[in-house]
């Protein structure tokens, strides 16, 4: 991975209405490699949009360095940065045709008309809007506008394409379709994408690397699988996907397996490597890590949510105890609410949070 974008020690704070200051970026280091699909993921207010806007040049950093291809671009105005943005609201120019919208970067860049028209046709073709050039943005559907915004942003062949929650206004089916198309487009173009979202599913589907942000800092970054399977903090574990967290104290060691006990007295089998008796830890078990079985953790089903192919079950080991989320295949013999079942899981698959 060659370093394309390099951000070091980025800081940016804003004045709050109450007169204080809030840090939107609190010392962020980020690298983006050429041709990499990086997703900035986090709840609203975590600083992901500020980080994106400091790459595009709409936010100046209070401190820190932004280098693109090794060149410091921190002082460049947005129109001199070789990056383009797909805005959340699309920000299409309503007084121009689709073709002129798409060709805008070339028009202001002084590219000759014939060359421009050829590039516009090609860009519209890439996003599946061939033949829509003469229309006005107001005559297009939301999904089509999205594609125009995309075509407009890629026509100038930016070094990095920045996408600011571009799919949030689309309905679910269209969103999933666009996720796949974006990934394909990114692969074909060979441009690095930096994608901002608060939707963990979106992040998991598309990214080469997910950067989880929280309160102006990077909480964890890694591949989608890495982030999902090996969250480093409670925040990441809870933000990415549904999860069960158990705060346990190691009670005893049984060979490869350690037995942890929660405050409620629930006993869990954990991977024993590196654990000593009396150590406190937080065990992460995804709903899909559990299987309904003949033997294992005895629980009572308290709630059952039908999801189509799957069932979302809530089960508790003892009345009033913690609720465990379990994903089970929907079948004729699926347990009813109130049924006593056993939950089995692979002790080696249990992930322990560091420093918990």
């Amino acid at each position, binding site marked *: 991975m060659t370093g394309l974008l390099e951000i070091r020690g980025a800081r940016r704070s804003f004045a709050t209405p109450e007169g204080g200051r809030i840090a939107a970026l609190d010392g962020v280091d980020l690298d983006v490699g050429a041709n990499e699909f990086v997703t900035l993921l986090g709840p609203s207010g975590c600083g992901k949009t500020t980080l994106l806007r400091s790459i595009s040049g*709409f936010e100046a950093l209070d401190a820190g360095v932004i280098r693109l291809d090794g060149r410091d671009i921190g002082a460049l105005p*947005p*129109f001199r940065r070789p990056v*383009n943005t797909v*805005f959340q609201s699309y920000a299409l120019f309503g007084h*121009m045709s689709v073709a002129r919208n798409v060709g805008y970067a070339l028009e*202001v860049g002084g590219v000759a008309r014939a060359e421009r028209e050829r590039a516009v046709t090609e860009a519209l073709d890439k996003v599946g809007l061939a033949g829509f050039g003469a229309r006005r943005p107001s005559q297009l559907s939301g999904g089509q506008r999205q594609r125009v915004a995309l075509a*407009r*942003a890629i026509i100038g062949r930016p070094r990095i394409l920045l996408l600011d929650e571009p799919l949030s206004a689309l309905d679910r089916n269209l969103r999933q379709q666009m996720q796949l198309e974006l990934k394909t487009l990114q692969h074909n173009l060979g441009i690095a994408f930096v994608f901002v979202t608060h939707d963990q599913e979106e992040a998991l589907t598309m990214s080469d690397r997910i950067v989880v942000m929280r309160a102006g800092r990077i909480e964890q970054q890694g591949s989608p699988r890495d982030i999902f399977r090996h969250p480093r903090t409670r925040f990441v574990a809870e933000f990415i996907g549904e999860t069960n967290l158990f705060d346990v104290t190691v009670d005893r060691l049984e060979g490869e397996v350690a037995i942890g006990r929660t405050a409620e007295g629930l006993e869990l089998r954990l991977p024993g490597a590196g654990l000593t008796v009396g150590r406190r830890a937080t065990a992460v078990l995804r709903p899909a890590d559990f299987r309904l079985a003949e033997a294992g953790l005895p629980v009572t089903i308290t709630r059952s949510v039908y999801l189509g192919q799957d069932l979302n079950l809530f089960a508790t080991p003892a009345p009033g105890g913690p609720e465990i989320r379990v994903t089970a295949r929907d079948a004729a013999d699926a347990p009813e609410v109130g049924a006593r079942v056993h939950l089995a899981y692979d002790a080696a698959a249990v992930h322990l949070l560091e420093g918990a």
Partner: protein
Amino acid sequence: MARRRDRLVLAALLTPVTLFLGVFFLVPLLTIAVFSFLTPGLYGGVEWAFYHWNYGRIFGWADGIMEVFEPVYLRILGRSLSFAAVTVLLCLILCYPVAFWVSRLPERWRLVFLFLITLPFFSSLIVRLYAWLLILKPSGLLNEMLLGIGLIGAPLEILYTPTAVVLGMVYVMVPFMFLPLFAAVDNLDRSLIEASYDLGATRFQTFRKVILPQTLPGIVGGSVIVFIPSVGNFIVPDVLGGAKGLMAGNLVEQQFLSARNWPFGAALSMLIMSVVLIVLVTFVTRLRPKEG
């Protein structure tokens, strides 16, 4: 069935405004149009006989005995049009940047400012124009101030000049320009400007290709609203323009009230109206956003 009822409802809703405009707008307009082709009565009013010399006096087919061709009428009309155009331009230059500034103020200050803009409407126009008289006269506030700080050696002769008329018209018309402009500027989507910068457009390109076209409806609207009353305005030239500052509106006023030549006044009115219409239609159609 339902469609028929919808039509009835629509007709019922449109009747009051149709009646009002029909009676109080169309009838007077038609009266003036008809009067302009009638013979002037001896002591005002009209005599019901066709008479085309009213227009002849303006355009040059006067009989030379009863009615004399005076090119001065067309000259005055031309001057009125150019004064109105200058007024529009000055109002635009004054208001456009301010509209951007106000649209970025915090909500509370914005309301204060919009209130201030409408404040002049709370007092009489005549009174406000006489205040200008006091400011502009040779021993007035402006000259005293400029003399006081030594910028000029002798009082400036501003009052009763075209400068004073344009100054007064701009003063009267600024709110009418500002409000539609502000509405357009305030509606401007900031993300469009960002998108333009993002795509590599400089500030000037962004202004020319995005900001200007996006706020064009406000510019056209404000210009039209300022231009029309400016052409026919007779109060401002009356108070600040003096005898030499005669404008088209003053001509009409004189014909009806002093000269008591109603048909000629009506002919002048029709002339002003048609010229204004032609200018506006040309202006609005020319400025409609072009597709490139």
